[in-house]
């Protein structure tokens, strides 16, 4: 099979030209995960060769830097780094240049760093190393960014991004209800604002940041109504993030039990998780301009098809009568095939 371009041409109109303050929802199922698609969005925004496609819709001058913040709740820095490398994106270098920041919501989400609260002198990194000796830790290289006297989040992460490329920030979930979510939101927005200000320092203009939140439904599943977090609170959380970024992409799971068990057509009572997840995912789809759905092939597994991709107009999409060719896209359903080397082939049915 011939080598595929990193960005399949059929996919280009969907991953590029995201409108200002828009929400894009990626839904995936267990058998058809969306990592490759998230990577395509990253590529469209960050790659040097693609000529400013992602921010093109608003007619912003091409000199403007594109920046991406990736918040991942299910996968580690190491995973994203190695996957991106296969596409030709070097996250370490991009982080260095202040074009990219990774917020790690996986490795320490439920681990409250003792060091920060008890002894402010001891940096938190070694403590976490002894407890979680896996995933991203080796690549962070030399330990312990200079011990910051104020071990607050902001100080620490600035040190990290400048010294050693790696996750700009590790999220910690503490507290109850909206307060816990607000803390997470603040942590993420710190990183977003930091990227913006580094751009302002470099070339004067403030860059616009694309925010990708990978599987925040983990948060909902891990807290739930008993902790005062429901679909509404999660939706508001996403909204808070949206307010501060150019465009937001949120990836959630849409497996059948998580979506359909809560519907009125089933006659057995749904669990709180099923209800909240369905309300969260469907609520996001109502707010999204574009909904990209990945699912398995209905006719069963095939050797040369990984799944079906359907791009549809979400609830917030409106026909504003713009004749801008770049902003125009059609609803479409295509098949895709993720090859062994990570490249993706996208094609129509029967092609």
């Amino acid at each position, binding site marked *: 099979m011939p080598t595929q371009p990193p960005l399949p041409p059929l996919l280009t109109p969907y991953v590029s030209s995201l409108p200002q303050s828009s929400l894009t929802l990626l839904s995936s199922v267990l058998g058809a995960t969306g990592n490759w698609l998230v990577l395509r969005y990253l590529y469209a925004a960050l790659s040097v060769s693609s000529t400013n496609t992602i921010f093109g819709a608003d007619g912003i001058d091409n000199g403007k830097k594109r920046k991406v913040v990736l918040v991942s709740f299910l996968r580690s820095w190491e995973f994203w780094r190695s996957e991106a490398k296969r596409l030709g994106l070097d996250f370490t270098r991009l982080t260095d240049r202040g074009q990219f920041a990774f917020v790690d919501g996986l490795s320490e989400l439920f681990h409250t760093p003792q060091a920060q609260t008890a002894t402010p002198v001891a940096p938190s990194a070694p403590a976490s190393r002894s407890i979680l000796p896996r995933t991203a830790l080796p690549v962070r290289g030399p330990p312990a960014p200079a011990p910051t006297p104020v071990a607050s989040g902001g100080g620490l992460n600035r040190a990290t991004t400048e010294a050693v490329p790696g996750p700009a920030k590790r999220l910690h979930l503490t507290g109850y209800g909206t307060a816990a979510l607000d803390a997470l939101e603040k942590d993420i927005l710190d990183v977003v604002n930091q990227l913006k200000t580094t751009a302002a320092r470099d070339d004067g203009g403030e860059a616009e940041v694309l925010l990708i939140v990978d599987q925040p439904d983990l948060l909902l599943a891990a807290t739930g109504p008993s902790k005062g977090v429901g679909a509404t609170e999660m*939706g508001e959380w996403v909204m808070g993030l949206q307010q501060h970024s150019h465009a937001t992409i949120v990836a959630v799971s849409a*497996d059948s039990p998580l*979506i*359909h068990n809560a519907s009125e057509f089933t006659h057995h009572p749904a669990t709180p998780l099923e209800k909240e997840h*369905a309300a969260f995912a469907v609520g996001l789809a109502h707010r999204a301009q574009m909904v990209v759905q990945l699912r398995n092939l209905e006719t069963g597994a095939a050797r040369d098809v990984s799944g079906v991709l359907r791009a549809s107009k979400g*609830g917030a999409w409106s026909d504003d009568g713009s004749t801008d060719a770049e902003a125009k896209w059609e609803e479409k359903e295509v098949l895709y095939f993720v090859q062994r080397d990570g490249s993706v082939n996208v094609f129509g049915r029967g092609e």
Partner: protein
Amino acid sequence: MAPTNLSHRQTHNLLLISKLLSLRDTASPFTLLLDSLEQPATPLIEEYIRRAKLSKVHVTLIAFETLKRPDSVDVLVPARRKSPQQIAKEVSAAYQVASSTSLLRRRLILIDSLNPLINSKTVDSQFNLPAFLSSFLIPTSPSSPKVETSLVATYHQDVSISSNQQLYAPSPLSLLSYLATTVIKLHSFSHILAQKAARDRSLAAPVFGLEEEQDGVLLGRLDKLVGNENAEGIVLEMEHRRKSGRGVLEWYILPPASRYPPNQTKEIVTLLDDHPLYCPPEEPDTGAGDEEPESTFNLRLTDRQRREREGVVLPYFDAQSGEGPGEGGRILYDMGEEDDFDEEEDEI
């Protein structure tokens, strides 16, 4: 249905929808829009805003899920992380600012989604949805000038209701539809057409999107599958409760916004029954009842042919007139010269 009856219904119900959408005479103080992912209410809300601007109505949008203020909305009240009391206070404050500068007698309050409010974990258990909604409609103080307020709220039917509902309370949807003076349910026109086509053939009506219950499918809408340009538009299933208590049910179709200029004042909504795709116009009658099927052949008979045909005596009449029942089974056959005489056959 008699044609006079139909035309009466047309004029009457078109006047009604025009009155409702243009918020004239506060025909409906509280309108509930029931939408789903298959047909979001966004186009209808834009139509409300467009008409409100034409007739200089003050528009407030209570934003549970909108970030950017649409151009023609006067005030956007973000509802994120706010208690219902705070929202109500801000909404009334927004109008006081506007009314102090210019004289606006009518106002439209839009709520882009009621679901976050209903599902919220942070509002206390004392929260009363009917009281919250009516607080927008009832003037704050008796001395304040009378304002004609209309409330239009959207409720997403497909967003599930969270688990913190009281067991004995009615579901939020039934409560809302009880309160509403008008309920408009939105459908996608192409889906209505597909369902009608199935019904006409006595097939089960197809379902779309979430109702398909297919793994990984949230949205079923596809422009391409529709294929038909004319099938654009949204279908409004309206139920209006009059002051007398009598209800009016009607189906309308709202064409997409790109089909008419934004300052159009003529009514654009039509009855669904009047749409050529939904009810194709009947074939014009070619003649009286006993006509024959159309074709390129001439299947008709001339007068002479008909007379001759009537004159033919068919063989069984011949048999009946003969020598009685014993002769009935005989085969009468005259051999022609081209026939090949077969002795064996003749013996049988």
